[in-house]
């Protein structure tokens, strides 16, 4: 009976259907359109400099968006990413500029990278426990650190802008490998590792299972709580890393601005990249694609003399369109 139904339901026409095509390849189409537009309209678009600028800026969005993608894959959301960036970014200069850091430069730099990352990991653990063990809705659970994380960063730095000149730390944000920004390579490396994790490891499989059907995953022996805590920790540590990169790019740490509104960029990138808000899908490279699109939209508008403000509206429309297409696909 069901075969009969599908036969009846199938459309006999062979005309090209834009709807489904856009839904599955919307991201790539959007990217192509933006690139084409820029090549035609934007002056000096096809230059190494453009590529360099965009990569160095997109890397942080991409790194956070990948963490966000994992969280969304379990059906969650993490609003605290920007605050965690501010926190880890504030800690790093404090450490390598401390007396200890000055006296032992090598150790100081190591600590300035490791300690903030551990703090970011702890923030993720905190989020994860609230969500997994206390069953608090992810939006609310991560709201706590969203509010107080940046506050802690500002308390640590007393709200001061910390400027520094430390070439070895700044390498994180200004170094070049094969002529391209170090953080771009870093983002690619992270993407490869996460892709491997999601496609080859038991953890990755469980992440998708938990997002796809939590009860089924639990009844099949999946460690639902540990998996959830795990994704928030990964998202936390990636945000911490992004915070360090931003500080390194600027050679300054501003706790008030570091990572501000990053949660929106990261969510937008993840969704544009194909992550389903209901969970169950973790397109890692999609997150990078989403981040690139968002960065390029920003760049395009800026390079063509449109104010930054309008870029916000454009971003809003991108998010709505991406989610709307998702909803349509789901039904």
């Amino acid at each position: 009976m069901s075969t009969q139904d599908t036969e009846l339901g199938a459309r006999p026409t062979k005309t090209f259907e834009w709807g489904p095509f856009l839904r599955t390849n919307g991201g790539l189409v959007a990217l192509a359109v933006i690139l084409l537009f820029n090549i035609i309209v934007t002056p000096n678009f096809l230059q190494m400099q453009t590529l360099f600028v965009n990569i160095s800026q997109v890397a942080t969005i991409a790194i956070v968006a990948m963490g966000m993608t994992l969280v969304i894959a379990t059906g969650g959301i993490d609003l605290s990413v920007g605050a965690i960036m501010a926190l880890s970014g504030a800690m790093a200069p404090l450490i390598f500029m401390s007396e200890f850091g000055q006296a032992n430069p090598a150790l100081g730099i190591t600590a300035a990278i490791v300690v903030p990352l551990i703090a970011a990991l702890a923030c993720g653990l905190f989020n994860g426990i609230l969500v997994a063990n206390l069953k608090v809705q992810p939006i609310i659970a991560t709201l706590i650190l969203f509010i107080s994380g940046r506050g802690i960063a500002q308390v640590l730095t007393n709200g001061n802008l910390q400027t520094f000149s430390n070439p070895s730390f700044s390498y994180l944000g200004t170094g070049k490998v094969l002529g391209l920004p170090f953080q771009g390579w870093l983002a690619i490396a992270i993407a490869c590792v996460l892709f491997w994790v999601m496609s080859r490891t038991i953890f990755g499989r469980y992440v998708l299972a938990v997002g796809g059907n939590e009860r089924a995953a639990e009844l099949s022996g999946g460690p639902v709580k540990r998996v959830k805590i795990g994704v928030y920790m990964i998202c936390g540590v990636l945000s911490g890393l992004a915070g360090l990169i931003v500080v390194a790019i600027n050679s300054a740490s501003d706790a008030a601005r570091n990572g501000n509104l990053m949660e929106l960029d990261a969510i937008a990138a993840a969704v544009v990249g194909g992550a389903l808000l209901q969970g169950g899908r973790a397109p890692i490279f999609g997150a990078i694609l989403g981040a690139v699109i968002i960065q390029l939209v920003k760049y395009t508008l800026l390079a063509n003399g449109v104010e930054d403000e309008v870029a916000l509206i454009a971003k809003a429309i991108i998010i709505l369109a991406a989610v709307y297409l998702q909803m349509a696909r789901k039904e």
Partner: protein
Amino acid sequence: MLDTDAFDLRKYLSQNPQSVAVWVALVALILFGVLRYENFGGAYNFTSFLNYNSMFIIISVGMCFVIMTGGIDLSVGSVAAFTSVVAAYLSPYGLEVALPIAVLAGAAFGAINAFCIIVMRIPPFIATLATMLGAKGGALVISGAETISVDWGSNFTRMGMETALNILPWSIVLVGAVIVVLWFVLEKTTLGRTVLAIGGGADASVLMGLKVNRATAFVYLLSGACAGLAGVILASGFGAGQPLEGIGWELSAIASVVVGGTLLTGGMGSVTATVAGALLLGLVFNILNFENGRGTISFSAYWQMVIRGGFLFAVILFQARVTSGRAARKAQT
């Protein structure tokens, strides 16, 4: 025979200790302030405190309605920034023009939210996130990213800067009146009860034949309008439209609502307790200022964010216990 003495949620709900606790904490904090600081109970502090917090109170109340349906509105902060600019532009025509149009502008953003959520079926979180960006961008565009000075010649600044009976700022009088109306709507009308029913069970509400879409649209329009009003107060009180303001307001509002005992999952909430929650969070900041003024310890202003987060954490822990009790019961029956 009929088992009526089931678990203790009943006690919790009927007495709602959290709402009570908020008021107790509020009174305790005021007493603490009055006893500890010389000028705390003075007219100046009273007036400026209420004036400043009236914006947060009205936004929190609007947010409270949204959260009672189980939704969320992240756009309130940028909508307030947007409407503050609108109000500043319209200030030469006087309050009677600037106020209603700015409020309508806020409601228009609410209408966009409602459309996205009800018709396009986009989750409230995402829909209002987009509106947040849109309103922020809109505010910056129409203002040219600069603060817009209001017309000091008209009656526009009276609301934010003058007081009734020499003590109550007009802003808080207006906000108070709106809150009274909204209290009536929630407690005494079918619309208000529908709002609560949706949060308590959206499917059940549909099956009960309630006008679910209408009530959902109402809460987002209301939240937008409340943000619009806050924008007017902002422009009036600071003498300028502030396109860059409003960052993080939505979170303060959510925190106030939660501290006031409204369940984040919806279905239960109170306008008065939300007002108390907003006052409580504002007061924490106020007291920190006084403590710094005494100079004995130096709490930087940044601590207020940390403390707000801590507050939220405590309340969430408390609510998590209550709701998990209910879940356990559900599993049993």
